[in-house]
């Protein structure tokens, strides 16, 4: 799925990065970064309510280039700065994790497992 289309589906606001022509195939929902670090999948979207700098660091280490913050969590200036440094697309939505996941699953995004 095209990242621009994905962002529109969950009514998200981009706070860092440029979705340009990125393609996302799978998504993983977790507030636990320890679990995110066990995933070895490319073209992955991370859906999380964990809004702190370590969310961005985790994505950096795991080669995740797109993060959706749910439940109206807001990215801090530090998160936005680090996301930009790592060429990561960070976007926020007010809807819940379940709601966002449901919309994206219905639209064809695949689970990791």
């Amino acid at each position: 799925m095209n990242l621009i289309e994905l962002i529109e589906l969950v009514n998200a606001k981009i706070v860092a990065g440029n979705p340009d022509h990125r393609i996302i195939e799978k998504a993983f929902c977790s507030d636990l970064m320890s679990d995110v670090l066990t995933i070895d999948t490319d073209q992955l979207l991370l859906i999380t309510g964990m809004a702190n700098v370590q969310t961005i660091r985790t994505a950096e280490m795991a080669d995740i280039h797109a993060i959706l913050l749910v439940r109206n969590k807001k990215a801090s200036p530090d998160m936005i700065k680090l996301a930009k440094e790592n060429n990561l697309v960070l976007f926020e939505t007010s809807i819940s994790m379940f709601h966002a996941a449901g919309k994206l699953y219905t639209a064809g995004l695949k689970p990791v497992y």
Partner: protein
Amino acid sequence: MMTLHFHIEGGNFTNAGFASSQVKKTLKQLNIDSGLIKKIVIALYEGEVNIVAHALKGEIVVEISPETITMILTDEGKGIDNIELAMKEGFSTASQKVREMGFGAGMGLPNIKKNVDQLFIESTVGVGTKLTMIKQLDHA
């Protein structure tokens, strides 16, 4: 042989991951396979977060040769009482603060073991812990 040194401050979650990030950038510059880089930096990041989460302070030394990367993480702190137990998925002594940062689920050490070729843990209660992680680079 290239050697990188980092000082890690215990409890400082703002900077946690800085060392791993620098190592990742260096490995990219050395044109190492991206799948291999991911495994190396995930192991290192887990170790770095462990120092921040559990120790007073620590040092990370990364030695890169054409064949091998060796990462030595030494910390001063409470140490690990039972290493066998610490290696079990789900076992954790992390504080509430660490859990609020999205860690402390007892996945760190098992995930390090999964991502490197060799892991050695030495620890003395009340003194500190030394992790040595080795990953082969030449048969990527």
